[in-house]
């Protein structure tokens, strides 16, 4: 069952499944968000938007709208440290 990245709670580790077709899709992919990539939601800005995620060693922030384009699967054995 895939979910939108925008709905994932901070601390959770997820795997990118696919990105909805949009103008932003190639940009998101260039930033390293390709299918199979493990990312961790780190924290949210004060009003819950934008969010910050860890993409293999760097921190990327994106608006909820942008995160909503990204479908993710919860990683097995995802541990929470936040």
């Amino acid at each position, binding site marked *: 069952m895939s979910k939108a990245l925008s709905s994932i709670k901070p601390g959770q580790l997820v795997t990118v499944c696919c990105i909805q*077709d949009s*103008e*932003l*899709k*190639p*940009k*998101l*992919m*260039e*930033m*390293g968000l*390709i*299918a199979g990539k493990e990312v961790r939601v*780190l*924290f949210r*800005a*004060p*009003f*819950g*938007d*934008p969010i*910050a995620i860890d*993409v*293999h*060693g*760097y*921190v*990327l*922030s*994106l*608006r909820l*709208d*942008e995160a909503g384009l990204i479908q993710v699967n919860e990683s097995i054995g995802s541990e929470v*440290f936040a």
Partner: protein
Amino acid sequence: MKIALLGNPNTGKSSVFNMLTGLRQQVGNFPGVTVDKKFGVFNLSNEEHTLIDFPGTYSIYPRSKDEQVVYDVLKNDKHPDYPELAIVVADESNLERNLFLFTQVYDLQIPVILVLNMADLAKKNGKSINIPALEEAFPGAKIVETTARVGMGKERLLQAIQSISKEKLTERFYANARICDLDDSKGQETEATERYGLINTILNRVQTTSSTKSEPTSNKLDRILVHPIFGYLIFGAILMIIFQFIFAFAAYPMDFIDGVFADFSAWLSQELPTGLFSDLISQGIVPGIGGVLVFIPQIALLFFFIALLEESGYLARVVFIMDRIMRPLGLNGKSVVPLLSSVACAIPGVMATRTISDWKERMITILVAPLMSCSARIPVYTLLIALVIPKQTVFGFLNLQGLVLFGLYTLGLVAALLIAALLKLLIKTREKGFLLLELPSYKSPRWGNVGITVWEKVKVFVWDAGKVILAISIILWALATFGPGDRMEKAALSAKNHAKELKLSNEDSERFVASTKLENSYIGIMGKGLEPVIKPLGYDWKIGISLITSFAAREVFVGSLATIYAVQEDGGENKRLIDRMRSEKRADGTPVYSLASGASLMVFYVFAMQCMATLAVVKRETKSWKWPLIQMGFMGALAYLGAFITYLILS
């Protein structure tokens, strides 16, 4: 040789640039576009090399106006800036994403050196690279490890530049590589997937990560700095400190520059032989230059702080916590810096919008930035406040004059935000805004980089604002020096006789004559022509003249009034000018500068686009006269209405 410096943002690219070129840097333009081209030269065994610093990008495919130049130059080997060698700077602690751009450049078959920067950070994160093995994957390319922030690895890099073959590469990393068209999303997506696949295969082979479970320091700091309460408190406190410096401490060097130019121009008019040309120099050009240079302390200080925040990595967090607040207003988290800069001067503010990748959000930021009260408005505000606002304390401890000044700044800010929200509804665009911002890890700033940034911003301001202000100063000087026919001469003669009758002292009579001449000059006639239009705001033709002259720069308003009222300017406090203005009466005996007309003038200056230099920069940045004209239109309408309502209410 022409060398291109490329790399992701936050990789220490500018440190590498500074390390190689030192202070031998210049800013020019890429042909056909308005993006700044930063380049520097350095010598290597008697050969001179030009290093062009391209904007930081994650890919050759652009996502903002700034980044497009990378694509335009690299895909076209006929382009005058097409490099013979490329240096790609990569953050070693985050190689996967950094190699993406590098492999794209490699596949263009440009001879290329990969600089693995921030080697220290990578070690700290427990990552190590087998460089020979990585080099093997890219035949023809060279790989150099540096820590440019502390100047480590410079020799190795220079050696690589010298020894690398300048022949086009023959291999390709990604066999299907071709440059996609900008609107070919599908092609770019396929490229991204396949390229990352290949990169990961290589990295698995050459990179070892000793997994460290400890949380990075950045994460701990971010708990506080993006905290819902402390985050804003800290940002607010930082703003307070910055403004304290800009307003309180910058005043000393500003007064000094002001004084030097006033003395110099007075000295010139005494020493030079009398004549038109001398007048042009002492009354047109020298004060014009002084009017530009006086703002350097504020601009330098502001950019010092902004560069400091940027270098440390904090600025990205400001964007992060402000984005949600700015968005309903049609702005972007990245609009914070341009708006902040505009408090010193809208020119660097407008230029700072280039980092905003979304066209609409960038346009709105440009349009509202000049509503922030800039430093050129301060002399106008302080003069008018001293003139019509009583020195009183309200609520027991607040200084009323200070409160009014604060109110004017707030008025500008609120207007900027409201107009932005309005423009959001009016400007139509197909695209949706986006953020996609990297939050770099915190670093202690390098003072060298900060210094160079400040130097560059000041240079750009002096040049961009300088030429416009100077040109307008000369035009205005001519309009104030000449009049139709012999009207001025006649008026001057009768004023001289009148002064004699009144037994005025030499100096007073000279000023009286100057004032009469101004009244009969072209500009005086324009001021009088303007009177019916500005009468509803409570102004007379003398104020009209000053409104026109302050198109050069707002603070010229004060100097013009001094000439019109024939008083000597006495710097800082303007006591004599204020006394003279207080005694100015209308035909019916009421004072010209009442609370109503004074406040109306203040409101006018908060809103009006009285700055040709900013208009010129907006034209350059938006590439058409449409936007600066719209801007001047709505700001003018706002100024007129605001001033009219203020006058109506207070009188």
